[in-house]
């Protein structure tokens, strides 16, 4: 079984190909504003490097957010078109769920993505990657208080330039570990795949009256 892993929810492209229990190839590139131009070229390059054609993939594991709105949409569009047109099974996981999956000694993993204006996207996970605090759009200070009240043994995981009260680890995904963990997750219809933004657009919030 060949698994294609794809995460473009941040300024980085994280892509990998796992065959059974080994990592065949991976791309971890900071692309920033070049994500839209380079993501697919890098995926094609990675596939070619291990002599795989698009239809050699047996399952796609897609990270569908939260994170950069545009970043999420780029990876999702690539993956849902890929899965739909070649009829390849596809499953989606959260960026925070993937970020929480690190190998260390802390009791709690707190993946954090900067959502600007003192807000973050975050969740709290235990050592088995079970969510203790569900993924949400939350004020940074509120998250920090919640984490501090829960345990002394926690670590924040982030790729963003944000100041957090506690130990912070830079996110560097172990693609083999993530794929191994989620490869049996239930598949979804590619047409139904959407980004998990965790936040309405400003226009929707204004219309709903949640901001003035």
């Amino acid at each position, binding site marked *: 079984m060949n698994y294609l892993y794809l995460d473009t929810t941040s300024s980085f492209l994280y892509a990998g190909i796992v065959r059974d229990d080994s990592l065949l190839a991976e791309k971890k590139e900071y692309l920033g504003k070049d994500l839209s131009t380079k993501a697919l070229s890098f995926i094609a390059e990675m596939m070619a490097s291990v002599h795989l054609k698009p239809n050699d993939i047996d399952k796609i594991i897609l990270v569908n957010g939260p994170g950069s709105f545009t970043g999420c949409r780029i990876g999702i569009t690539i993956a849902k078109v890929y899965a739909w047109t070649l009829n390849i099974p596809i499953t989606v996981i959260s960026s925070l769920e993937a970020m929480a999956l690190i190998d260390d000694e802390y009791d709690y993993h707190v993946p954090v993505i900067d959502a600007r204006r003192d807000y973050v996207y975050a969740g709290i996970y235990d050592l088995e990657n079970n969510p203790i605090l569900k993924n949400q759009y939350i004020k940074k200070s509120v998250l920090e208080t919640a984490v501090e009240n829960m345990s002394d043994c926690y670590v924040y995981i982030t790729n963003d330039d944000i100041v957090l009260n506690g130990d912070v680890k830079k996110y560097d995904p172990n693609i083999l570990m993530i794929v191994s963990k989620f490869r049996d997750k239930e598949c979804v219809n590619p047409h139904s795949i959407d*980004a998990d933004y965790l936040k309405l657009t400003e226009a929707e919030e204004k219309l709903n009256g949640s901001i003035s």
Partner: protein
Amino acid sequence: MKDIYILGIESSCDETSCSIVKNGREELATVISSQIDIHKNYGGVVPEIASRQHVKNITMVIEECLEQAKMKMTDIDAIAVTYGPGLIGSLLIGLEAAKTLAYIYDKPLVPVHHIAGHIYANNLVKEMHFPLLSLVISGGHTELVYMRDHLNFEKLGGTLDDAVGECYDKVARVVGIPYPGGPQIDKLAHIGKVNYKLPSPLNDDSYNFSFSGLKSAVINLNHNEEQKGHSLNKEDLAASFQKVVVDTLCKRVEKAISEKEIKYFVTAGGVAANSDIRSALAQICDENHIEYSFPSIKYCTDNAAMIASAGYYYYINGRTATLDINAQSSVDLY
């Protein structure tokens, strides 16, 4: 000669569309998923919401198009896609989908300029011949384009501020007509009389347009009437406003006809559906013995059939792109 099938994708604003066109002229299937009902709630297109909707719709639209045409991706010769101008977040969805299909099926990727697409909507109605003058009028564009041959675009002039369709929508909003107000203004204009005096925009000798002054004049007129405790007669305002718009557009078209060799005239874009604009332009063409065509109403607004039609000519001219092409919110027509 072998038939060439182009699959076109368009997502530059708030319509997700896919179409398959044979040999640049024969539309086999077109699917358009419009978001207009969503954006109505906000009084206009909200870019972030538009992008979010495109992601939801894109694969369903392509699948339905292939089903309607009874074709598979392997039957397609090339994939044409709008790469600009337009809303960047919206453009990216169609472009990324097109790139992915091009990669998976190893098909040529053909980037198409949105305005070229609007012009080529006419090619689906009647074969275009040259030299040709095109008036592109929509919510995002107002341009006068001269073509000596296929894909040979010379922009004679364009709007210096608001697009004509944008001006229609804003005037409609002033008098309380919900978005999109353009078609409603056209209807009201046929009921009302030209009783309000509005300024003629940009009275110079160029090919350019300007609609912000006209828009401000309507806003000021409404404000003044309100201060007097009166309300504007919507029908008369619509008639007065539309008269100025028609005269402004016709003046530039007549200037081009008098100065250029023109055998064929086309108009394009959402505002090309306007009945008064169509009849005035038809009259000018008749008087000057110039053949013309107007796209049918379904081809006036954004659609992928026009992209596939233009894409055919780009494709046979070898104008393809690699997977690293980017979307561009603003880009010259070439």
